[in-house]
């Protein structure tokens, strides 16, 4: 897991050396500017993720494990769950989502202020998992956009933290264009 093993990310420092040049390279030709402001904004956002845990099922145990002191999501700046969607910028959908609760989930997503991101935590949220039946949403990406998929039944905390660091990379890349 490269994002986790790099010394810079483990110590919480920003790896300016890699992120800023890559941002410049991804700009289409004709646009000039390199965006130091974007880099700073991305850096600030990626290390201050306020998460909203939408926990519906057994994956919640694994979420607690990843969030609590043993694996300690706080090391990556995501240690402060907000139980109001208006104060959160990361929606972690943890556990099976049924058709009955799908409108609630969508409403919570709509209540979050931009910029916002979504993690599908566990295989049930990614694809429906083995609940291929009348009651289960076959992947929450049918009802809202998803940034990072963390499959697994349940995913181990290492996978969760890997997914979180992938999201941090993405946030860094987005800069001010983040949604």
């Amino acid at each position: 897991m490269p994002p986790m093993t790099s010394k810079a990310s483990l110590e919480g420092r920003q790896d300016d050396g890699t992120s800023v040049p890559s941002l410049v390279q991804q700009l289409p030709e004709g646009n000039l500017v390199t965006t130091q402001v974007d880099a700073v904004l991305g850096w600030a956002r990626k290390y201050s993720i306020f998460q909203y845990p939408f926990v519906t099922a057994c994956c919640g145990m694994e979420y607690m494990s990843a969030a609590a002191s043993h694996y300690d999501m706080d090391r990556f700046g995501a240690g402060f769950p907000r139980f109001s969607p208006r104060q959160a910028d990361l929606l972690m959908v943890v556990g099976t989502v049924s058709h009955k609760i799908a409108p609630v989930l969508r409403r919570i997503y709509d209540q979050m202020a931009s910029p916002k991101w979504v993690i599908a935590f566990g295989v049930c949220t990614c694809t429906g998992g083995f609940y291929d039946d009348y009651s289960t949403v076959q992947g929450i990406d049918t009802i809202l956009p998803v940034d990072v998929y963390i499959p697994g039944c349940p995913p181990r905390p290492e996978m969760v933290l890997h997914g979180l660091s992938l999201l941090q990379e993405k946030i860094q890349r987005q800069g001010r264009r983040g949604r």
Partner: protein
Amino acid sequence: MRFETRTVASAQAFDTLRQLKTGDYNVLIDLTAVDYFLYGKCPEPVGWEQNFPSGACGIGSPAGAGRTDFLAAGAPGPRAHRYEVVYRLASLDPATGLEIKPRLELRVPYSEGSVLLSVMSLWPNADWLEREVWDMFGIKFADRPDIKRLLLYEEFVGHPLRKDYPVKKRQPLIGPKSGELLGSPSFNVVRQETPFE
């Protein structure tokens, strides 16, 4: 624990249950139903018949030789009543918490159109159990208020635990009916507009 099993017609079900209630069966453990839609009938040919021996349906192949547990000759035919409502009863001594009598399972054959009285007046916890049976099987109990869906949503059409409910049928409340992705892939590419907004 082993259940003693009795079968009673739907017309006599309520009286029988009332007598059982007065006869020490004070706890309704469970109330559920079984759909015997395909019981004893030949299944639609779907490709796995060769796993079963030649039997009442005249299907099968030597590959399934030796198996007699499914549709073998002499297997029971289709049932007269499609459903069976199952009541499971126990008798608990309120003072000690011990069971006085062996548990009892009462089976009530039921067809659509016949009347089955609610047992809410005998065991109040039958309320949600009867609503669940209505929700999943569409078996309606008479003489009780407010029978509506318990687990599924009001917009749901049909009763999913019926054997003729299509396995692949989906009834989402929001999102595309076909279940395709809602724009997710587009969020995984860097947007092409200018960074100055």
